[in-house]
């Protein structure tokens, strides 16, 4: 159990008696950390993701808080929001750009955050995998849909 071997165990005459303890009766953590020789990712994906969370976070502070102030606080709060209000805003490329950037950053930031959460809590590899498939699908769908809406918005639709 507590034998620390680094090389291969070339133990001679290991008369391995049957283990004396019912190992089924251990209180085990979800997944024990195993010997991880030679598993190196050699990519910077995790680091870039980490950096992205921080960079996007900083930008989002302005975008999201600005958005909230405009939508919920300034002249009349939610009450003012209507098709016409949206139409008015998206007439300007500035607001189009704002919302587009916000959409992309927030979705990517949120999706990456959700990825972390899934990695943390999903216990089995298959569960992880399917949850991530779901996450990616939902994210791609939302981002594309949102982008489409912003660009193809037609104030004269009826």
């Amino acid at each position, binding site marked *: 159990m507590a034998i620390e071997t680094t090389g291969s165990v070339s133990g001679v005459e290991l008369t391995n008696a049957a283990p004396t303890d019912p190992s089924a009766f251990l209180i085990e953590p979800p*997944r024990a950390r195993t010997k991880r020789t030679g598993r190196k990712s050699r990519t910077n994906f995790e*680091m870039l993701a980490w950096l992205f969370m921080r960079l996007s976070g900083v930008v989002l502070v302005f975008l999201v808080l600005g958005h909230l102030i405009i939508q919920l606080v300034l002249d009349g709060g939610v009450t003012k929001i209507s098709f016409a209000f949206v139409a008015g805003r998206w007439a300007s490329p500035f607001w189009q750009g704002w919302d587009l950037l916000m959409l992309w950053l927030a979705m990517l930031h949120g999706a990456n955050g959700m990825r972390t959460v899934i990695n943390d809590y999903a216990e089995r590899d298959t569960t992880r995998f399917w949850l991530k498939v779901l996450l990616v699908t939902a994210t791609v769908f939302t981002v594309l849909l949102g982008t489409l809406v912003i660009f193809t918005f037609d104030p004269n639709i009826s």
Partner: protein
Amino acid sequence: MSTPTIEDAPQAGNPHSAGLDAAESGKVELITITVRIRRFNPEEHPDAVWVDYQLTVDPKIRVLDAINTIKWEQDGTLTYRRSCAHGVCGSDAMRINGKNRLACKTLIKDVSPEKPITIEPIKGLTVLKDLVVDMDPFFQAYRDVMPFLITTGNEPTRERIQSEEDVQRFEDTTKCILCAACTTSCPVFWNDGQYFGPAAIVNAHRFIFDSRDEGAEQRLEILNDRDGVWRCRTTFNCTDACPRGIEVTKAIQEVKRALVTRRF
């Protein structure tokens, strides 16, 4: 630093502070405490159970002393690890009143003895019996970061020269006693034991920032892994738990920044 020579006149009757008087009075007001221990012995029962022990003790003793008293006088089957009894060997990390601590560095009076004192094994490692957990995954993560000095070229005949400032750069993380209090306080580690954990990172830090070492690049690469430093969510549980007062989170952040600056 030079050692001042002191030939000062004897200070007749040192001024005594209240703290010293209290420490010296030797006056012992015994109190009765309840120690509630999460026991688990798979040879007898597949489930863990909470067991209460009552004992009368001097509140200034260590929690470890209380546990020893239980083992020696009430229940010899109680199992835990201990050795040095003064916080330098790292054997007796356990969860006392919900927090990771060393039982030998925690005094009864400091863990609200008026209520039952709960004691559980540290979290996230396989519990083998009572407070004894399987330390192998913990040491495996430690070994994985190459915790030894890596140098190239010929060894000097005398010592390597290193300034005191360069020593100070990593001094904090050399204090680690591998007690696992930090790693097993980390919420990320509890989720799945795959995260390297703060202790391994602390020990990597100890070498990455040692001016004599030339293996920083390799160690950083290892910690750049999916289960490396990037999993840390800065929850500071490790820093709060470290009995050696190591600024664990700070060390982790320094490793993260070293990884970032290395690339850009």
